[in-house]
């Protein structure tokens, strides 16, 4: 049986989540900003129409914001994650197999579905259900390979007449679309590859599809060769249902205000390591290596630049916040230099072990802390309950350095105290 994939992609996801709970903003241009209220990461259709580009720094559009009354939100990750979860579980009820590809995209395996219902009809059904149930509009691209499904989705977004669903299973339609699409729109073809392909006279997706796979493999890589095959309808990338086991966990942020004292930096690092340790326990893993890094702003030429990282190994793999925190803070003390204005710092956990896998050395004297598992479970349970938070004193209480999110909307769906009001 020939393979069929669909890519379901939410339209303007963050902006749509914000609008769903604000009927007063229905026709108002709206943008969502990235961490620290830096750049535009989502735009409502009205904001797009005003010519606001993705990724533009907020300060550059200040006059547009005032002139057109554009409503600005900070990223509300609690809301977006909950809404994403709703979209994904609904897709799981509708389709035989789902791969969650990002917060607002999922691949569906629709192989065999066409014997029961036309693929386009199925696509419209998915679109209608997500809109009715969750209030989010999606576009659906359907094709024999994931790469073509991505392009079909792109077309569904771009051309209104499609009604948000494009069935690209017919090879004739595939060729027609490929001829219209610049090669840079193809999944996995970034800016560098686009330039190198242009040098070979390959500008459209169709020209890439028509290239000799062996030549492409020689000139580029097996990955690009696979893209060529996928563009020709030969499925090389299966649905990945189980997320790959993480090899490392990174937790880093840019600071709301520059950090200049070791005390504040210790609080930040202690906070990041607790978050990373919590994620590590969520994965059911233990880590043996801890990395800490910090740097000043890379953009400010006036200030002296400093950027450094260091890694240390623990004697035993652990998921205990206390051990990881002690190691990370010791690393920080080594790295710290007075007299700089630090803009960003972070931690990374790596060298993971599943429980019971690590073989201690015969003469190792280190033993795991007593009751560590129980204590960490209690900490995580309290913090996940939504009722309150417990944290280690090293993380500080006031957190003047924490992320700037001045235009944060309520956690409409994840906090009882912030659910929407009705009259």
């Amino acid at each position: 049986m020939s393979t069929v994939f669909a890519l379901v992609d939410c339209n303007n996801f963050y902006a749509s989540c914000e609008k769903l709970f604000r009927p007063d903003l229905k026709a108002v241009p709206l943008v969502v900003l990235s961490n620290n209220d830096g750049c535009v990461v989502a735009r409502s259709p009205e904001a797009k129409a005003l010519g606001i580009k993705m990724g533009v720094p907020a300060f550059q559009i200040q006059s547009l914001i005032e002139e057109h009354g554009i409503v600005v939100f900070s990223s509300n990750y609690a809301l977006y994650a909950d809404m994403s979860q709703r979209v994904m579980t609904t897709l799981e009820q509708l389709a035989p197999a789902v791969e969650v590809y990002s917060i607002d995209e999922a691949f569906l395996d629709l192989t065999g579905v066409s014997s029961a219902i036309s693929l386009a009809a199925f696509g419209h059904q998915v679109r209608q259900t997500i809109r009715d149930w969750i209030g989010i509009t999606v576009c659906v691209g359907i094709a024999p390979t994931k790469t073509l499904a991505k392009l079909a989705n792109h077309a569904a977004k771009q051309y209104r007449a499609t009604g948000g669903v494009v069935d690209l299973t017919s090879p004739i339609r595939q060729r027609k679309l490929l001829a219209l699409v610049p090669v840079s729109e193809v999944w996995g073809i970034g800016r560098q590859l686009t330039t190198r392909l242009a040098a070979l006279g390959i500008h459209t997706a169709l020209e890439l599809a028509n290239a000799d796979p062996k030549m492409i493999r020689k000139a580029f890589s097996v990955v690009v060769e696979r893209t060529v095959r996928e563009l020709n309808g030969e499925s090389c990338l299966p649905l990945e249902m189980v997320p790959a086991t993480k090899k490392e966990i990174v937790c880093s942020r840019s600071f709301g205000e520059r950090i200049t004292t070791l005390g504040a930096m210790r609080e930040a690092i202690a906070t990041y390591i607790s978050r990373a340790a919590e994620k590590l326990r969520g994965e059911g893993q233990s880590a043996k290596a801890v990395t800490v890094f910090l740097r000043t702003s890379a953009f400010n030429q006036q200030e002296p630049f400093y950027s450094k990282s260091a890694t240390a190994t623990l004697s035993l793999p652990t998921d205990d916040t206390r051990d990881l925190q002690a190691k990370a803070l010791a690393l920080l003390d080594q790295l710290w230099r007075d007299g700089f204005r630090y803009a960003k710092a972070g931690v990374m956990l790596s060298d993971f072990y599943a429980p019971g896998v690590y073989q201690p050395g015969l003469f190792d004297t280190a033993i795991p802390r007593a009751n560590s598992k129980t204590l960490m479970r209690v900490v995580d349970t309290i913090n996940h309950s939504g009722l309150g938070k417990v944290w280690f004193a090293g993380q500080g209480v006031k957190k003047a350095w924490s992320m700037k999110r001045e235009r944060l909307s309520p956690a409409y769906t994840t906090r009882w105290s912030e659910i929407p009001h009705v009259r």
Partner: protein
Amino acid sequence: MSSLLIGQARLWPRRPIPLFLERVSAGFPSPAQDYVEQALDLNELCVKHPAATFFVRVQGDSMIEAGIQPGDILVVDRSIHAVHGDVVIASLDGEFTVKELALRPRVQLLPRNVLYAPIEIPEGMELEVFGVVTNVIRQIRRQR
């Protein structure tokens, strides 16, 4: 004014209550243990479609005759297609409102309080229904 109480509930998420079929005598290993057949979960009763369910809090008294009081939490299911007589959350003049939906003889949003007048939805105007209210959750005992 008569008040119709349509629900008394306190939400206890993730707190299953075992249902016993037999009476249990104290101080003795329970012979009923073998008969525990199911843990009752309020979510099961109030939330049929978790992905499509939202909670909202009531402000105002326009629905008190339908047993909906200020401060109540409403369970709103977006997967249900609203029909005549359903209590719905609609967006009206840029605000969410809870009212009874009338489709006959014409489209109206009906408050359930004699002090409020029905809201006419003129023909040609699209009424935006956010979802259908399925349950009311009210804290009976005041929180100390």
